[in-house]
Structure formats: C-alpha cells, structure tokens
C-alpha cells in the first residue's frame, strides 16, 4: 500500500515538474521568436553557410564599413493583393574591402522579413562586416547574401547581426581582429579556387 502511494506521489510530482518545464520552454520559445535581439527567421533562404569560405565564395563582395544612414525603401505590392513587402535601404561607408570590388560608399537594401526585429546593425554609426550580393548595376545596389552575412563590431567584440546560429556564433566568437584575418584567408582560398560556393537550396530537390 505504501509502495503504491509512493509511486502515485512520484507521478504527481513529476507531472507537475514536466508541465512546468514544458510551459517554461514554450514561453522561452515564444520570447525568442517574437522579441529576441537576434530572433530566428521563419523562412527558407537561398543559401545556408557552414564556413566563412562558403560565405565569401557565394558573395560578390565582403566589406568592413560604417552605417551612415538607413531609411524606408521600396514597397512591393500591397498587403491584400500580394502580401506586400517593404524594404529598408542602408548606406555604408566602406573602410576595407576584403573580397570583390565595390565603391567607397554603397547602398544595400533588406526586406522586412529578412530584417525581422534585428535592426541594431542598421543604426548610423554601427561598425559592420557585410557579405554582399549585388542586385542592381546602376546605381549599384546590394543585399546581404543571407541572414548569416551580417556582423556587428563593438571594439573587438563581434556579434551576429541577423542570424544567431552555430555558424555565425563560431565566426563571431574569435573577435574583430581574428575575424578580419579569417575572412582574408577565406578570400584567398576563394581566389585560388580551393573553396567554392555551396549549392543553393534551389534545385537541390530530386527530379520527379
């Protein structure tokens, strides 16, 4: 009788424990999803990088610069007809070109979905490392190659700007000076052909 009672109490205590833990995890997931400093993105991107070499190889340029201005850009469609999509444009003074060729001042744009709530890197004065894809010629316009392609520098500290994942955290943890060396090394590997861009998600599926 005592054994049965002990087991019953055990079940009751654990049920409370598990329910509480689950609720906390759901609350945490909710907080991460809606309010996180670098919140997760709920989208399928063209690229997912596993290394700096892949990031550099898939990008037209990689630059170190300072944001000078950000402002509302174009709007595609409206909310009812196409779902609508708004863009932010960001002007950057380039201090160092680590890969590719770009002007001293560049403009990039990012859509509201890719940005999410992660807009700290667009504040004027922000020091940023950007891997960029050129999306227009004249005037030249760029976008981050993916959400893993933006890093913010504060002193020697580096933080991911758009995507907080294993790749971006590994890249950022080394600090500013080491990251710049790593990117230059990656760019050299891309130049000599030892590293190439990964396949895009597009077309990865098996033919039917």
């Amino acid at each position, binding site marked *: 009788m005592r054994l049965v009672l002990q087991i019953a109490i055990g079940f009751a205590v654990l049920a409370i424990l598990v329910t509480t833990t689950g609720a906390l995890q759901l*609350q*945490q997931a909710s907080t991460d*999803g*809606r309010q996180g400093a670098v919140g997760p993105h*709920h*989208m*399928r991107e063209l690229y997912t990088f596993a290394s700096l070499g892949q990031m550099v190889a898939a990008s037209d340029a990689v630059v170190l610069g300072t944001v000078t201005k950000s402002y509302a850009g174009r709007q*595609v469609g409206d909310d009812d007809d196409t*779902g609508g999509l708004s863009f932010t444009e960001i002007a950057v003074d380039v201090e160092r070109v680590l890969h590719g060729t770009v002007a001293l001042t560049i403009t990039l744009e990012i859509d509201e979905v890719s940005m999410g709530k992660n807009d700290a890197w667009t504040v004027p004065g922000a020091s940023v490392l950007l891997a960029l894809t050129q999306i227009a010629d004249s005037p030249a316009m760029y976008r981050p190659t993916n959400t893993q392609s933006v890093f913010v520098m504060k002193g020697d500290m580096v933080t991911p700007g758009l995507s907080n994942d294993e790749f971006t955290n590994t890249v950022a943890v080394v600090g500013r000076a080491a990251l710049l060396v790593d990117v230059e090394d990656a760019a050299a590997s891309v130049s000599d052909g030892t590293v190439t861009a990964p396949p895009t998600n597009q077309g990865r*599926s098996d033919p039917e």
Partner: protein
Amino acid sequence: MRSTATISFIGAMAFVLALSAPVYGTNVLGHRAGPDPSIRFNKINLGPSFTNAVDFNDVNNIEPTDISSIMYTNADASLGEVNIYDADYGNVIWQGNWSCRDWGTGNICLKGRVQFNQYWGPYPSQEAKSLACEEIGHSVGLHHSQAGTVPDQWNVSCMSQNPAEVYLSNHDETHIQAIY
C-alpha cells in the same frame, strides 16, 4: 521495501520524462494559429504550382493532425487566419517565409502570412510542396528542425529546409498534437 519504492519512483520518472520529451522538444516557435484547432487558410492569388503544393500539404500534413483546416480561395484577406500568397518579391534572401501580422493574447497569431517568392521559381513540384510544408508548418507553430535540436528525426522533415522533404516528421506531428 524501500529500495523497491525507490526503483519504482525512478522508473516512474523515466516513464513520464520519456512520454514528455517529444512534446517539449525544441522545434516549436511557441505560438498557435488562431484560438482553436479549426484554422482558416486562405490561398490568395496563388498560381497553380503553389495551389497544388498547399492542397497536397493540407491533405498529407495538416489534416492528419488535430488541426481541422478550412481552406479558402478568396481575395478577401480578412477570411484567413493564415493568408497564403505567391508573387515575384524580387532578388531577396528567401524563397518562402511565414510571419505573424497580428498577435493576440496568449501567444496566438490571429493573422499569419505565408509568402512564396516566384523570383526564384519556377519551382519543381516537389520543391513547391516542400516549401509549402515548411512555411505552413511555421504558421501552425513549428520551428526549423536541426541536428542539434531534433536529433531523432530532424532530416526526415520539410522543417529541415531540405527541398527533397515534403512531409512533416512524426516528431513535428507530435508537437502539433500538443499545441492543438
């Protein structure tokens, strides 16, 4: 007697934790679409490719769960709790996305939006189905599945972002059952 009770207690603990593990895994976003398991999806201006993909997903991934889907094809965006669009959104980072446009209380997304980007199309049928599976999976509360967070079944789910996968995993479905 005491050792038997201890063993029973540990056994009970293991049993309860084993039961609870799939439900409280880590590929949930922490919200639900709408206040009840009956969810109104609205296919707004969808082309044939994504119409087929969304319908395939509804039959194979959504209806088998506790969600009861009500599918509209109507330009009136007020009808849907999840409105689904495809359009040429241009040279942006993504092929598809889900976002919540209107949060209610209690982590309920009152108005979700799924967009498929035709700029990167046309998509093969399998890829369109995979995209529909993932983005609608987000809309009902699922997160991406990755090796580090869903070690058992991460790569057999469209939530892994692999365009070859067009189905949710059992793990994903367990989450949905728990949410709805």
